[in-house]
């Protein structure tokens, strides 16, 4: 790899990135009175899809009923707009740094197929867990920490604690 190529792929200093992310989170609280989030936008998509495909079912199942009562238009929500912004912001940063590329990223020790199976399984677990835990790493852990939320800090400890507890068993996927 040439020096120029290396340079074009350089990431931001993590502490600088952290301060900037903290300022984004502070801005969200100052303007909108809430923190950042991610899984909530995916939930909006699911509730909208279920309501469109099987409206009778969505009107009877309590999970959808409760959500639709609180959010009559699930796609016109703060988190959906925020996550659309994340796609734009991520794309801009990737474009500026020369990182736009279709690929399956994985350790040389495993196949793409194995990587994708684990990605799917991880996604399913994370999706389920984010509903049970009332928010994911962004909404519960990070935003919760900024407002000193007890629940957010407990969830954060559980996420990272479990990650460390299981890391040994799947080390081949990453190291």
């Amino acid at each position, binding site marked *: 790899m040439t020096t120029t190529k290396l340079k074009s792929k350089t990431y931001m200093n993590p502490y600088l990135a952290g301060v900037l*992310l903290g300022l984004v989170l502070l801005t969200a609280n100052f303007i909108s009175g809430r923190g950042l989030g991610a899984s909530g936008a995916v939930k909006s998509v699911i509730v909208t899809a279920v309501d469109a495909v099987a409206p009778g079912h969505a009107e009877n199942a309590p999970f959808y009923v409760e959500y639709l009562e609180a959010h009559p238009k699930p796609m016109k929500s703060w988190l959906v707009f925020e996550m659309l912004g994340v796609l734009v912001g991520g794309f801009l940063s990737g474009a500026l740094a020369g990182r736009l590329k279709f690929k*399956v990223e994985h350790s040389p020790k495993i196949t793409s197929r194995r990587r994708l199976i684990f990605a799917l399984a991880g996604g399913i677990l994370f999706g389920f867990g984010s509903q049970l835990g009332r928010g994911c790493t962004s909404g519960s852990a990070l935003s919760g920490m900024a407002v000193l939320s007890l629940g957010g800090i407990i969830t954060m400890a559980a996420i990272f604690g479990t990650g460390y507890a299981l890391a040994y068993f799947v080390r081949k996927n990453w190291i």
Partner: protein
Amino acid sequence: MGPLAANEIISQDTNLIFAFLIGIGFGFVLEGAGFSSSRKLAGVFYGYDTVVLKVFFTAGITAMIGLLFFSLFGWIDLSLIYINPTFLYSAIAGGVIMGAGFILGGFCPGTSFCAASIGKIDALVFIGGLLIGILIFGEGYALWEGFYNAKFLGIPKISESLGLKDGLMALIIVLVAFAMFWVGEWAEKKFPREEY
């Protein structure tokens, strides 16, 4: 003055425009820090790359200190800020399941969208998993509704639970974060891995 939306200084529609702009900032910083790479993210669990720890805790303490100062200056009414409620059992169990998802999948929801935006196919598959996982939760809701709503502790701040003032609690969290940065720097030297 703040929060602007709750104090009706800006309309609900304007608030959504700000949501989009805030999202752009969120995505830009995540990608720029390397959160679009699952192998960089997973590094925090093996010590070879602790960017997650550094960015996450720097962001958390920056926003936390900012909110406390904004409140002190009278710029923001903290009582109007959303704080997530604490349901003890589901907060722990949800976190455990998410932790398993993190180490298997290599992403969390926010980072998977960020990675998908620059073309990572594994991130797209992870997002497909998120949709399935949330659908399973919704469809089986009756089975775990009791557990989901059990052990409600209200909307406590950790400072209240420990009987400390917010400022002192914040100082402790900052010191803990600094200790973790030190551990992170040490781990990256101790468990190096070749760049890929």
